[in-house]
């Protein structure tokens, strides 16, 4: 090959070219296919990258249509379902109505019985309530009773104690007063005492005891006294145990001159005590009696 032919050959493309190992021996068509494949790979990549945007655009564009189609489809389906469901619904409604009727009939049949049962139940309830209330009341009473008994006992005891204390105090006061009165009255009696004033028979009855029945007449018990028995020569034929000698006074009792003095032994004497305080007598006449009785017993 001449030099200029070689130079000319450089200026023109050659089909048989040296290629890197792995690619060079492939025919031109295969190389073109590879190039095409590479381009497709790039296109695929671009396609993949562009897909989300396309999808979005398509989605946006298709949404109104889809909505419309969806609405229409839904309406059609609903209509079909409605049509298909109508006989079933009717049947179901019929069955439901029948069931209701049956129920109502049974209800109407069962109503009197139910009413009776309800009334009985109500009565029983009322009875139970009443019994319960009664029981509760009894229980309460029992409890109150149980609670009140000790109080009552205590109150009664307190009342008795109070009465006793009062009585004792009054007795003591009365005794003191009598002693005082007695102590005041002794000098007076000594100085002013007259026989008529000391005679209970002659003295006037106080108003408080005017209506009281007379005490039984003291009948002197007479008995014969042995001659050896010395006649008391003292001016105090009567001695009252428990009384001071001064109480009787040293003055001898006036004796009728014609009367032969008998020896008398007095076993019992009724004493009428005239109490100075009319107010206390009016208030407690029984008490006066009780006091008199006590004095008498002392004798």
């Amino acid at each position, binding site marked *: 090959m001449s*030099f200029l032919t070689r130079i000319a050959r450089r200026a023109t493309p050659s089909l048989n070219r040296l290629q890197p190992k792995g690619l060079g021996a492939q025919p031109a068509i295969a190389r073109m296919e590879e190039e095409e494949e590479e381009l497709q790979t790039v296109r695929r990549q671009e396609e993949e*990258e562009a897909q989300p945007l396309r999808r979005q655009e398509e989605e946006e564009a298709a949404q109104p249509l889809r909505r419309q189609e969806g609405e229409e489809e839904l309406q059609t389906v609903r209509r079909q379902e409605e049509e298909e469901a109508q006989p079933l619904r009717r049947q179901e409604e019929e069955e439901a109505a029948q069931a209701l009727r049956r129920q109502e009939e049974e209800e109407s049949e069962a109503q009197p019985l139910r009413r009776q049962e309800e009334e009985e139940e109500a009565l029983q309830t009322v009875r139970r309530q009443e019994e319960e209330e009664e029981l509760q009341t009894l229980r309460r009473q029992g409890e109150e009773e149980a609670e009140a008994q000790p109080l009552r006992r205590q109150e009664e005891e307190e009342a008795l104690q109070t009465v006793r204390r009062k009585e004792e105090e009054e007795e003591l006061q009365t005794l003191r007063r009598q002693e005082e009165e007695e102590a005041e009255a002794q000098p007076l009696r000594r100085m002013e005492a007259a026989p008529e004033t000391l005679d209970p028979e002659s003295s006037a009855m106080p108003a408080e005891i005017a209506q009281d029945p007379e005490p039984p007449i003291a009948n002197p018990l007479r008995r014969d006294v042995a001659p050896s028995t010395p006649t008391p020569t003292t001016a105090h034929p009567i001695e009252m145990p428990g009384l001071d000698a001064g109480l009787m006074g040293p003055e001898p009792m006036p004796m009728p001159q014609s009367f032969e003095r008998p020896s008398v032994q007095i076993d019992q004497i009724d004493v009428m005590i005239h109490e100075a305080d009319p107010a206390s007598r009016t208030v407690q006449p029984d008490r006066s009696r009780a006091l008199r009785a006590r004095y008498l017993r002392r004798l």
Partner: protein
Amino acid sequence: MTRARQTLRDAFPEARFRPLDGLVELGVAEAASDARSRPARVTEVLSLIYEDLAPDNARRVASAGREWLLQKAATQFQGAQRWFETTCTTCGTPFDLEVHLDQVPRAEPGPDFPVADVVTSLGPRQFEAPNGGHEEAFAEVEADDPRRVFAALCGISDVAEAEAIRFTDADLAGIDAALEATSPEIADGVDTICPACHASTLTRIDPLGFAFPKPAAILAEVHLLAQTYGWGEAEILALPITRRQSYASLIRRDRGVRAPRPGRRVLM
């Protein structure tokens, strides 16, 4: 009148490479794969890759020098590719070849380079060694005898075209021999014997066919990075090639996308 000489006196000029970024790579890829004639594409690729070779200078480089520069540029993109394959032109069987692009044999020019004196039937004439411009021009015409065309293109005479028509075959053979003796030369093909059919097969070494990337691959990476990181085209193309490729492979790995085979990017 004598037409001005165009071929550079430096047969294999030592030109400096431009820093390889995406912009250079894309330009080279687009130049290598466009639809123009091969010499025109070679001129543009060389002017893009080498700083000292403007398009006019690239055209003025002798044809062998241009091939040498192209093979050197191929090593910038392909590395020390050693194993190639070809197909037997007789039986179609593919087979492997070991070729060192950085060690392709070349012939130094003659002492009178770039001009060859030839005594023709028309008289003594001077012809210059074919360059890129001659090749580009040759690619644009249809010629039955390339020697006559080159005689017209390379003749240092205002009437070279007219005289070329008148040259005899002997004149053309003398001109071819004189130019071969003066011009530098480089191997641009491999003569081998097919291991299957044992027929002799000539295989072209054309770096434009395998050494440079394809624009689609670069644009895909630009697109990938722009989409992922939000960077602009100029920003991405300003990245060094290796860095851009690393980013792209990381993104592909994350997305589970198969990376293109290394050789695919240099296919024509």
